[in-house]
């Protein structure tokens, strides 16, 4: 094999792997990404029933109702619109009324969101970033997460 041929083999195989990877990435990006929506987005964009989305917002106060066999119904709200959600299974430790939540699933024909996963918040100050931003935009942001008693003294260098 001449030098030229060897180089061609090298470049050719690199290109082949690259094309394969780009192809895989593009198909996967088409099929397996999930858009994040607030309840207002769902109403305004008229998200089709059956389309897989993430729905995020606050768990509406007083909306949690537990049924048989670990069925739970609650409502996710962003202050302007509210969407009822059903879920079957265990809820994360920090799932509470009035707290931020992100659920993943699809709308059914009646406008109820059937979630197959409810994402955990990691601690009591944590708010899913998308939720926090949407709430800020809509003026529902309560700044209590930032209120730490210690931060007042942060400027006092030794």
């Amino acid at each position: 094999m001449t030098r030229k041929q060897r180089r061609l083999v090298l470049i050719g195989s690199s290109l082949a792997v690259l094309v394969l990877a780009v192809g895989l990435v593009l198909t996967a990006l088409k099929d397996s990404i999930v858009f994040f929506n607030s309840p207002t987005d769902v109403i305004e964009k008229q998200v089709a029933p059956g389309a897989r989305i993430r729905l995020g917002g606050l768990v509406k106060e007083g909306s949690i109702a537990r049924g048989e066999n670990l069925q739970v119904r609650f409502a996710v709200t962003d202050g302007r619109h509210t969407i009822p959600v059903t879920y079957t299974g265990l809820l994360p430790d920090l799932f509470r009324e009035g707290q931020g939540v992100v659920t993943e699933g699809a709308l059914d024909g009646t406008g109820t969101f059937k979630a197959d996963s409810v994402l955990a918040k990691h601690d009591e100050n944590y708010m899913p970033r998308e939720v926090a931003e949407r709430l800020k935009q809509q003026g529902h942001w309560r700044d209590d997460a930032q209120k730490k008693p210690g931060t007042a003294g942060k400027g006092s260098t030794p």
Partner: protein
Amino acid sequence: MIPELGHYALVLAFAIGVVQGFVPLYGARRDDPVLMGTAGPTAVAQFAFIAMSFAALTASYVGSDFSVVNVFENSHSLKPLIYKITGVWGNHEGSMLLWVLILALFGALVALFGGNLPAKLRANVLAVQSWIAVAFILFILTTSNPFLRIAQAPAEGRDLNPLLQDPGLAIHPPLLYVGYVGLSISFSFAIAALIEGRIDAAWARWVRPWTLLAWIFLTLGISMGSYWAYYTLGWGGWWFWDPVENASFMPWLIATALLHSAVVMEKRDALKVWTVLLAILAFSLSLIGTFLVRSGVLTSVHAFATDPTRGVFILVLLVVFIGGALALFAWRAPLLKQGGLFAPVSREGALVLNNLFLVTACGTVFVGTLYPLALEALTGEKISVGAPFFNATFGPLFLILLLAVPFGPLLAWKRGDLAGVAQRLMVAAGVGLVVMAGTFATVRGGPVLAPFVIGIAAYVIVGALIDLCERTALFRAPLRTALSRAAGLPRSAWGTMLAHLGLGVTLLGVVGETQFSSELVAQVKPGQTISLAGYDLRFDRMGTVPGPNYRDLVGQFTVQRRGEVVGVMAPSKRTFPSRSTTRTEAALMGRGFSQLYLSLGDAAPDGAIAVRLYHKPLVLLIWLGTIVMVIGGALSLTDRRLRVGAPKPAKGKPAMQPAE
């Protein structure tokens, strides 16, 4: 007083770092041995001062000095001592201090054990290492000072995030940081080579042990982190393709590629420019990882900081270091003498193929991790790229790579015999096919792809063993010869064999867990029994157990199999009053390599409690495989060829020589 000393020591380390960053470099330029000689002592002194600073912060934590903001926010006087200490790096400021401590440690190690490096290379490497340290110490001093005080010291601290109060936290971040930051040495070597404009096979021999060391710790750190997530988060997942996990996985992929390409460079004096580029990329991805985790662009348990000034500062560092390194590379790389080309079918060719796939696979992870951020910045559209994306892109690429893995070590350097190797791998392929068929026959239902992947795993494992048999002439020569050849094999050959074997073992665990797990979610009352995968669990009772700074609500379950009691599982809900938070403590029961996994949900008013029970076949193999890989890496690290300055191996009997 102690926090002030710590702060002062950090400032001193910064000043020393500035000296270390410029004087040796100037000395190397002027060929002045005295100026170059300053690199060693300054590197050691820099490490000593950062260590003092770190010790001061640790002392403040152990002594529960709540006048320090950092201690107040992350500690509690009733916390067990171990979590007071691990709390030091359980927050943004402390973890950055640990970051620079490890960075300086590596610099000091090169200074102490790099005695036989050429003087210029050593001076340049330590200078570059110091630039990184100086930049990050400046970051800590200006935006993330852990030694700030509160004028009026509160009586009690706010306690550490309960998720982080776990033995996993004691080991996972330090291991990961040693791995992450350890790659800075390969980076510094690459930059030093570019500054000098020359590079040779010996360079690869000096870089390889450092990369290998970092790789070992990175592997351990990722594996521990995964196990930690598995048992603390309560839903039995061990890998989420979370951006933070990807941030540590990408450097691992590139470091693995670097280890392989450095072999080619060392043995065959080829692939030089490529190896230098990989060394730069590996640490660049570590920096990007630090940015992702520390800047708060992602919100997760790992992002302690959500302060934009910090994000911008790290972003600037990122641009300066990665941009600068790549610009230097573009400018100076043409100076490095190109090595020879080689036949596509050869050991070199196989290693290039390995590099090609590892780097491309890393590219897909990179796209999946950063695409959502880029899209949001450009269009404001928010998307989530989850496991399905990575399974569809990374998965196929890695499986193709695995098919090629057993070929590499069996091919000869320069010109390999593909047909001959394929013939020798027939046994492995045969075993793979038999295992595949066996799985098809015995497991009903289940995904169609799973038996194929199990077959590939078996093939990789047997392929690694065949490599060993070939080298020792087992089954061909008398056993005595084979044994003596095995004893004479270089340790790096054992290392290769074990690392590849471990890969197969991990794959087996991954398939077992992801494809054959079963799950049951139910509500149980005391006295009721639930059944899954042939196990019957009887819920005996609930009880409360107090801990030092928490309270446990424990459920006790008796586990039976075919009427025989095999053990007791006691999952709990752990409540931390100081943060009024609850954490689920899952109970795990090992059955061979498989596990039963039980975690508690909410209690209903009538005394019933929600439980989640999993049966996870072969799950322990995931981590066992990584341990095998790490042992392989460690064996390879002790190979005499890599002990710089070790005497050349004496010419022994031909039978004692490696068979290559």
